[in-house]
């Protein structure tokens, strides 16, 4: 059942040109563009590539498509079927998440081909990608609850989106990383990428905890504030 929901959602995503270009072309294009510039700092390049993927492909896509499906009264229809509420929402999250993970693989592959070193601790890189995707899914569902139209999503997604980038750059640029940076979404991602590429591992535990906390709080808020129908 979840597969059927996801397949249909993927079809819808690919048939909407705006959503498809945002989710597919944008991160790949920008991610590749990064390589044209100075690539002496691979930590920065890979961090930005991953954050771009998380921000555009997972977070923004999840938010926008949930709002669009709600506005079409399609969410309301899905509730009349056999799938439970949870299955419906998870089914709709799968395509954006899967696209994001696939892009991470492609972007990391491109970087590797362009001369990036293999990560010293690949599992931490996997943690950054998968944990980041989970956090962005939860955040996207929450954001969809406070967004009434797909057009408004451009505004409502901005704070979390910039927190992702800002946090990542703040952490990357700081020689000594403290807990404030790790609390910002994006900050923990950058710290995990640093550690994966041979940096210090002192902050891996707090960074992972912060990632888990953002995901858990997001999921709890998402469950409480999810809206199946447009506001009337």
């Amino acid at each position, binding site marked *: *059942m979840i597969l*059927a*929901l996801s*397949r*249909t959602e993927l*079809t*819808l995503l690919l*048939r*909407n040109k705006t959503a498809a270009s945002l989710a597919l072309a944008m991160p790949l294009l920008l991610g590749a563009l990064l390589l044209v510039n100075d690539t002496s700092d691979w930590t920065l390049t890979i961090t930005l590539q991953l954050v771009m993927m998380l921000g555009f492909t997972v977070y923004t896509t999840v938010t926008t498509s949930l709002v669009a*499906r709600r506005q*079409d*009264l*399609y969410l*309301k*229809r899905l*509730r*009349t*079927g*056999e*799938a*439970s509420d949870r299955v419906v929402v998870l089914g709709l999250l799968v395509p954006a998440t899967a696209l994001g993970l696939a892009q991470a693989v492609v972007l990391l592959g491109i970087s590797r081909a362009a001369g990036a070193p293999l990560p010293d601790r690949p599992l931490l890189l996997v943690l950054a990608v998968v944990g980041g995707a989970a956090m962005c899914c939860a955040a996207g569902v929450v954001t969809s609850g406070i967004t009434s139209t797909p057009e408004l999503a451009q505004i409502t997604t901005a704070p979390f989106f910039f927190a992702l980038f800002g946090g990542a750059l703040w952490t990357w640029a700081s020689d000594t990383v403290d807990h404030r940076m790790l609390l910002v979404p994006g900050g923990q991602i950058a710290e995990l990428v640093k550690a994966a590429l041979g940096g210090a591992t002192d902050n891996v535990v707090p960074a992972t905890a912060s990632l888990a906390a953002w995901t858990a709080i997001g999921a709890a808020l998402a469950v409480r504030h999810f809206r199946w129908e447009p506001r009337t």
Partner: protein
Amino acid sequence: MTNPVIQVEGLRCSYGDFEAVRGVDFDVAQGELFGLLGTNGAGKTTTMEAVEGLRKATSGTVRVLGSDPLADRRAIRPRIGIMLQDSGFPGDLTVAEMVGFWRSTSSRTSDAASAIEALDLGHRRDVRIKQLSGGERRRLDLLLATLGKPEVLFLDEPTTGLDPESRLHVWEVVRGLLAEGTTVVLTTHYLEEAESLAERIAIMHAGRIAVAGRVSDVLARQPARIGFDVPAGFDVGVLPMLYGDVVHEPSGRVEVRTGELQRDLGELLDWARGDGRVLTGLRANHASLEDVFHAVRTDEKVTSR
């Protein structure tokens, strides 16, 4: 009632401070079509949503096929079909894709091709849903709700906005399901729809059921009407003694509202024959649901027996 498929007792539902449903009771028997009628905002859709398991009741109990539709949603959903008053489609899917998708989320077995044909959508199967007309979308709606022949079917205003031909088509599909034993709960604005399909109806007003019963009984409780054009030089005084009330309408008609249709009609005809009068535009009929509806709406006291 033996073996009710749906039992609703003391149902109340609130939105914040506003109580939309204020104590509703009804039962629906296996294989019957129960019509829920009412003015706009009477609470029909809220009642339906509570029975479908989409809305939590403030108080009261709802049983569908013996279970709580909300708590036992997983057990009940495979056995019921729901057509909401307003639910939408992703416009970028084609008709066939939507049907295929819905089938794959359903545990009932069904034949997509024949379902599409049965609702006269065969020529539109590869068309994107956003290009369908309103009537076609509504038929697709009904198709999904009835896919795989559910035991219980909920139809919330299934023919609103349909042209007369499509409406008849929908009625035909519903009758077909009834003949196969499906139990149906239907809300509608169209009185002829309820008269034509429903065995029993309840008319809601302001969150309560104002009138309920067999369609014929509900109609029988309302006075019948006799009407004819005003003869030249007419004076109400010349009429024979009638059981019902005589109204001389400014439009030039005489209307009699009577609980004794046969007796009063006989009196009138005898009088006209005796005087050698011709009553032009003579009409006599039982109350219509329209009359009942009107009585409920204007807050006339209509007692339910």
